[in-house]
């Protein structure tokens, strides 16, 4: 099986190398050859992932934990590249390679006329490789490798259209905000090495319960449990990658990248790396009540606050981006409630329906010749039936319509927050519950504005409207299937069957999902039961409100803006987070740099010390020049004085 595992990341890597190097150095290798190389690589990875999934579930295979090669040995510590293949990994690689494959195929249509066609395929195949290395890792070093590598490809892809000022602003911003997260992450890894003398997951997880009572003095007189510090530092990394408040600011801007990568990287896979990481680290997080509370509260704030922002966006991709932020918040809440399995479950369902929504949005965007403003859309239902129906499925899944996959995963996050007893759980519960209404409202606001109502595009655009080609619609359909079905099919084993086994560890006193299991009597009964619960009515109210405001009584939107003006302003300005970052942080850094340079280096060190010394030497020399008179008796006199001084000093020493 080792070769199967190796093949999963290496096949996309080979695809990336062929598409990238050969595409650049050997132009005769045509566009088709490039996309076939990349697609073939990812398809092989997907097929092998299915083999691994089968082996880990039905085939009765044991988890595999082994090294591939030794990266470095230093100070007696082995730094290795290796894989941990268990059910969590199997689920992740299958999800990643499936969505990636869909996006690869879709790209043929979406990027058809782009001059950077080959480069794009090289990047997304490279991304797939990096993401797979991240989820398959069995140690923190490789985790960080994958973590940064997906960040790099994200940087390259957000700035794919590098002629656009907005794109290259967004990619720099994304990289730097992620680096703030990585700053915490790398310190967390350093803390792990310092206390566990190993970066291997298995070693660390085994030793962690023993380290429970260790403390570290973070400030003089302030002792913290080591585990809490480690978990919080690692979570800072997760906040960067999974865009949790206040490090969420990069994700909406990342929409500057081409739509396929918004679907793949900034919705389905990379941004969920933080969620995956915390779930993977569940043996550590379970030891720190404090860290879990922080995770819970951050997730709750993100879930609700960023969802609201989706209400005032006009750019279709940005609505979905804010929705992604909000859904990542839901997953984080699940983590904070110790319902790791629910987080991974939502990660998986979200990957399908959110990739679907993004790709559907992309289909609309190409139909309208790269128009993303929803104010210039409307009534597309008649022109684009496949896109319409698949987008409807994605939207229904997103708002948690009973029976759809998003329903099962989201419902259990809400229930988990309800059942959790740690500090912050109350807040989290209300935040995710209220979030259901907000989700339904922004989702169907978008849906109605795009597909229903008046056709607001210009004549030229309307004349060219048609359904997208097969390479675009087939992936939509293929993604729509799991968006509907995967939840009902997998909820029972994933959440209640202990499917993850040892991959996710939950302390018995934290196990909220075990409490929910008693009320679960099959997926269909659960869906029917949902009609009597608040989330269902909140979602219905959201859809209804959207219909009233954006279809039947458009004047109401203006009224709402006038009534709740302060809230509206806060939302339009994105809570002023970007302004704060731009003016205070980025501007402050530049001002500090200029101050240190001009005052520290130029004025003090060079001005006063270096050139000052030079001037001093000059002045001393000017004076000393007068001593050199050229008269012999002056020199003789000076020698005499010197001799006397030295003799008396020596005499003084001897005494």
């Amino acid at each position, binding site marked *: 099986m080792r070769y199967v595992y190796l093949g999963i990341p290496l096949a996309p890597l080979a695809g990336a190398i062929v598409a990238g190097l050969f595409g650049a150095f050997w132009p005769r290798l045509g566009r088709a050859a490039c996309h076939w190389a990349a697609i073939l690589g990812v398809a092989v990875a997907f097929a092998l992932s299915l083999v691994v999934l089968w082996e880990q579930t039905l085939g009765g295979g044991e988890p595999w934990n082994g090294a591939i090669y030794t*990266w470095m040995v230093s100070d007696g*510590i082995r730094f290795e590249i290796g894989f941990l293949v268990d059910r969590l990994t199997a689920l992740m690689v299958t999800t990643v390679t499936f969505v990636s494959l869909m996006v690869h195929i879709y790209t043929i249509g979406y990027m058809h006329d782009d001059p950077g066609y080959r480069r794009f395929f090289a990047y997304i195949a490279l991304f797939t490789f990096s993401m797979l290395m991240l989820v398959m890792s069995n140690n923190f070093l490789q985790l960080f490798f994958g973590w940064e590598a997906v960040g790099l490809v994200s940087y390259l892809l957000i700035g794919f259209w*590098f002629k656009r000022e907005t794109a*290259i602003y967004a990619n720099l911003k994304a990289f730097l905000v992620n680096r703030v997260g990585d700053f915490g992450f790398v310190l967390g890894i350093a803390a792990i090495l310092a206390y566990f003398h190993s970066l291997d997951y298995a070693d660390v997880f085994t030793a962690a319960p023993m380290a429970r009572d260790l403390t570290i003095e973070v400030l003089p007189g302030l002792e913290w449990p080591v585990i809490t510090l480690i978990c919080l530092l690692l979570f800072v990394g997760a906040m960067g990658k999974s865009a949790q408040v206040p490090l969420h600011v990069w994700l909406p801007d990342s929409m500057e990248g081409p739509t396929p990568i918004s679907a793949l990287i900034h919705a389905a896979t990379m941004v969920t790396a933080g969620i995956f990481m915390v779930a993977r680290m569940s043996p550590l997080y379970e030891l720190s009540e404090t860290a879990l509370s922080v995770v819970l509260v951050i997730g709750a704030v993100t879930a609700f606050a960023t969802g609201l922002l989706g209400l005032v966006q006009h750019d279709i991709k940005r609505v979905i981006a804010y929705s992604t932020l909000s859904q990542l918040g839901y997953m984080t809440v699940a983590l904070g409630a110790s319902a790791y399995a629910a987080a991974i479950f939502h990660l998986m369902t979200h990957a399908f329906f959110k990739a679907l929504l993004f790709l559907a949005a992309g289909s609309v965007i190409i139909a309208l010749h790269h128009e993303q403003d929803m104010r210039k859309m409307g009534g597309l239902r008649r022109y684009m039936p496949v896109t319409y129906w698949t987008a409807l499925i994605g939207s229904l899944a997103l708002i948690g319509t009973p029976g759809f996959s998003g329903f099962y995963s989201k419902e259990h996050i809400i229930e988990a927050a309800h059942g959790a007893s740690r500090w912050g759980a109350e807040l989290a519960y209300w935040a995710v519950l209220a979030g259901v209404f907000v989700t339904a409202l922004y989702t169907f606001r978008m849906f109605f504005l795009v597909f229903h109502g008046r056709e607001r595009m210009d004549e030229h655009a309307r004349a060219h409207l048609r359904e997208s080609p097969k390479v675009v619609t087939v992936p939509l359909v293929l993604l729509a299937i799991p968006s509907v079905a995967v939840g009902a099919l997998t909820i029972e084993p994933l959440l209640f069957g202990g499917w993850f086994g040892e991959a996710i560890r939950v302390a018995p006193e934290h196990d909220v999902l075990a409490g929910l299991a008693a009320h679960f009597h099959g997926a269909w009964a659960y869906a029917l039961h949902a009609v009597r619960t608040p989330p269902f009515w909140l979602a219905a109210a959201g859809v209804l409100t959207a219909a009233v405001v954006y279809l039947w009584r458009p004047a109401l939107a203006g009224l709402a803006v006038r009534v709740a003006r302060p809230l509206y302003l806060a939302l339009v300005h994105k809570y002023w987070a970007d302004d704060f970052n731009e003016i205070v942080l980025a501007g402050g*850094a530049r001002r500090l740099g200029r101050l240190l340079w001009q005052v520290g280096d130029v004025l003090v060190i060079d001005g006063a010390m270096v050139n000052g010394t030079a001037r001093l030497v000059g002045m001393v020399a000017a004076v000393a020049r007068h001593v050199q008179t050229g008269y012999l008796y002056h020199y003789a006199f000076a020698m005499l004085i010197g001799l006397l001084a030295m003799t008396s000093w020596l005499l003084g020493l001897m005494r």
Partner: protein
Amino acid sequence: MLADWPLLSLLIWTPIVGGVLVLLAGDRGGAGPKRIALAFSLATFALSIPLFTEFDRGTALMQFQERVPWIAAFDIYYHLGVDGISMPLIVLTTFATVLVVLAGWEVIQRRPAQYMAAFLIMEGLMVGVFSALDAALFYVFWEGMLIPMFLVIGMWGGPRRVYATIKFFLYTFLGSVLMLVALIYLYHKSGSFSILDYHQVPLGMREQLLIFLAFLVAFAVKVPMWPVHTWLPDAHVEAPTGGSVILAAIMLKIGAYGFLRFSLPITPDASAALDWLMIALSLIAVVYIGFVALVQADMKKLIAYSSIAHMGFVTLGFFIVYTIAERNGGLQGAVLGIEGALVQMVSHGFVSAALFLCVGVLYDRMHSRLIRDYGGVANTMPAFAAFAVLFAMANAGLPGTSGFVGEFMVILASFKANPWFSFLAATTLILGAAYTLWMVKRVIFGPVRNEQVAALKDLDAREYVVLGALALAVLAVGVWPDPLVEVMHASVENLVQQATTSKLQMLAAHP
């Protein structure tokens, strides 16, 4: 078989002889002198490969030793040898020189033969510095290597080259003089000029402090450490591309090497007493210089400041040894710190050389180093842009590139010393990315900014070879650093023992 050759002498004298030959051939020979220079630099590089492959990884003893009397009256020997600390730096030197010769091929129009000769002679002298085991010999090489660099900046440099050369010379020379005093004092104490004898000589605390400070001035200037760093940006800005490459890739390492060969083993107690100063200066270099680099308008200045910040990691890795021992009662982590610092030295050799060569590529075409004169270079030079982004990422410490390895090791090790050291050092993740990628954004990306950029030609074959070789090196060390780190183990473990064994008790035992 190869081990019987006087390999180190060959590595020193081959390039020097080659340099003299190139000088004799003169500029009238057309491409001839350049071909001679290339042949000699390649031969030297080839000779340095057995140094790596035949190196015995199991011992901390000096290898490839050669020892013949030189000035018998003063017990001065022509004594050469390498260990796991100096050997990688020698290979780095021979590698960098090949690139410099290639990089100057068509670019240097004025007196190309003398230019090439200066670099070949400098190469021999730098190998001499890394392999000398006799303090007097070391000093000769140390001062000798300044002369060709002085000439390179002074003759082929920019408009303010005179100011820059004088500043460079005075700074480094003043430091060296104090070092000479310390070396002579040690000769006086130990009765020989052998550096290995210096390691053993018992010294009192006061002596150690004075010697440590004398060394500190010499080495801190070379590294350079804050606040004696201001000569470096000036020197880089005025130096021709090749000068900058050698300055950044090799010369800065010589200061750091001095700390390992002299300060830590000769004055362990003084190093322990003043480690707080060294750590503070290192962290200031990382944070303060990081901010300063952010606002530079001149690409070369920006990379120069970035070099200072990266060298802060090197000195940090060296001097956390004592805090680690004190805090944990053991030395676990100390080797990681020093090896990390050494990897950082090698990696910085690749990355800074590559970045200066990238600036050189642009400068040769547009004769400007100012960021604001560029913009959208990727449109006209896609291959160059790919290399530049790769090296920028390496400079920002991206995993998979060599830039990550050393930084990561030092951050991990310094957490053992004090989490706050690690905290401050790790700010480079943000600052390093900010100053490097902001420059990339303004120079490489964006729409074509002006007609000169629109007229740019992409890399030619020669530039491909130079940047491609560096790209391979950067990726190789990033993906598999073990072969590089492996050679260091025995020597670094031995060094940690020396650095943490007090000489004061030794003095008490044998007064």
